[in-house]
């Protein structure tokens, strides 16, 4: 496992096994989505390994603001390389806003998955919703294990 700090002054932004990880948010261990608390709301996106294993995104279709989603339900769908897959919600709540820019130009998710490439802003129904996700203490080790495993399987390039 290699965890390199980047940049030195921002300890929440690290490189783990060649992929970027932000420690100001929590992660779904299997779906590679992230969730960040922002006041009463939770912002959701795809993590760097999630976008890398999916490939260049051609399309993102998101559900509408006002709709409710439960844990594991679809927030929308994505398409890359003629593959269509679900974007699953790591928390339950009401969709408050969706990233229209990402829906219009999904490459932003590949280029900036933790920033401009966010997907959905959600008002959670339960305050402890994020507790089941991977937190900052465990995230580097979890992320490194996933990346190294993907490399061993030949899923990611060396």
């Amino acid at each position, binding site marked *: 496992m290699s965890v390199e700090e980047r940049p030195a002054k921002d300890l929440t932004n690290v490189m783990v096994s060649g992929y970027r990880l932000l420690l100001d948010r929590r992660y779904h261990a299997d779906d590679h989505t992230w969730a960040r608390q922002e006041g009463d709301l939770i912002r959701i996106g795809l993590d760097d390994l999630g976008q*890398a*294993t*999916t*490939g*260049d995104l*051609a*399309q993102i*279709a998101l559900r509408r603001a006002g709709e409710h989603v439960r844990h594991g339900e679809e927030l929308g*769908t994505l*398409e*890359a*390389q*003629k*593959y*269509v*897959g*679900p974007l699953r919600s790591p928390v339950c709540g009401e969709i408050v806003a969706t990233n229209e820019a990402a*829906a*219009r130009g*999904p490459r932003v998710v590949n280029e900036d998955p933790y920033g401009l490439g966010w997907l959905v802003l959600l008002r959670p129904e339960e305050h402890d919703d994020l507790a089941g996700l991977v937190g900052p203490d465990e995230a580097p080790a979890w992320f490194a294990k996933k990346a190294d495993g*993907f490399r061993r*399987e*030949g*899923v*990611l390039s060396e």
Partner: protein
Amino acid sequence: MRLIELGALSPLRSQTTYHAIARALGPGDDPVLSLYWTDRPYVCTGFHRPVEEFDQDECRRRGLPVLRRQLGGGPVYLDADQLLFQVTLPADRAPASVEAAYRALLGPAVGAFRRLGLDAALTGTNDICVDGRKLSGAGMARIDDAVVCVGNVILDFDHDAMAAILALDPGMRRTFAAVQRRYLTTLQRELGRAVSRDEARDAIVASYAEAFGPLEPAVLSAEEERVRDELDVLFSSREWLEGEGAGWTDEVRQAKVRGGARVYATQVERGGAELRATFAVVDGKLEDIAFAGTALSARLGARLAAALDGLVAEREALLRAARAAMRAAAGPLRPEDVVDCVLRSERGRAT
């Protein structure tokens, strides 16, 4: 691995059957190889694509049903000369990346073409090609607990029908037809003889058995039939055909022939005059380029086309060629405008 062979199916069932197998598959279930063909021609588009990409009048005139699948990619024309195969397996048994999943699930299909005597290879992510010509296309989806990869073995192909059913302007349609003939091939063309469905089927079955272990002949389970019946209704509905996912928009009019080969129609306006370009970009190089519009004479258009055809689609190379071709040209059009027009193709989405 279960082997489900269903022979000729209606267009609707040729789509709903594999979706049903995927939806019914549980986490511990055996993978499934399913094989069949459509009993009559139809057109089908990808999950996120609008049916407006089809020329609806032409489809009606030809009596072609229009369907939408839950897989990616764009508009396709399907008929009885294509053997359709699908590999469905529990998602946790599929490689974690899209590219690796295609390699694993289409590798045996490449082997099948090799058994038939062709030097086939997986090209790009999901096309099976021989010497740059596409033999088979594929798409994939995660559906509930399953991953399904769908492909075809093209015994023969109606290139004219494929070009006719797309909503393209006449110039783009001509270019698409020409480029498609060059880069979308068939078993018959490559082998110089007709290949029967049975021969193609045997190659596919042997290759997947080699990769996945013995194939157990099976029929659809009661659950798979129940789900398929539900999907027959859903996939026939207007809501599905024009579903929320089908919101694809693109800045550029483009039509894909294979990975790395697309046909574009672009335009720019300069000083109230219009320049239109129709061309293909094949593995990074321009082919079949033609210019039209009020911004240039037919003679200059022909000179520019001759100068740019075959060049790498990069600004500097195109600019040099356009400058040389326009050395004595008068009017508001500049070489930079010509290059801008062509490179608008870069704004198109990767599909």
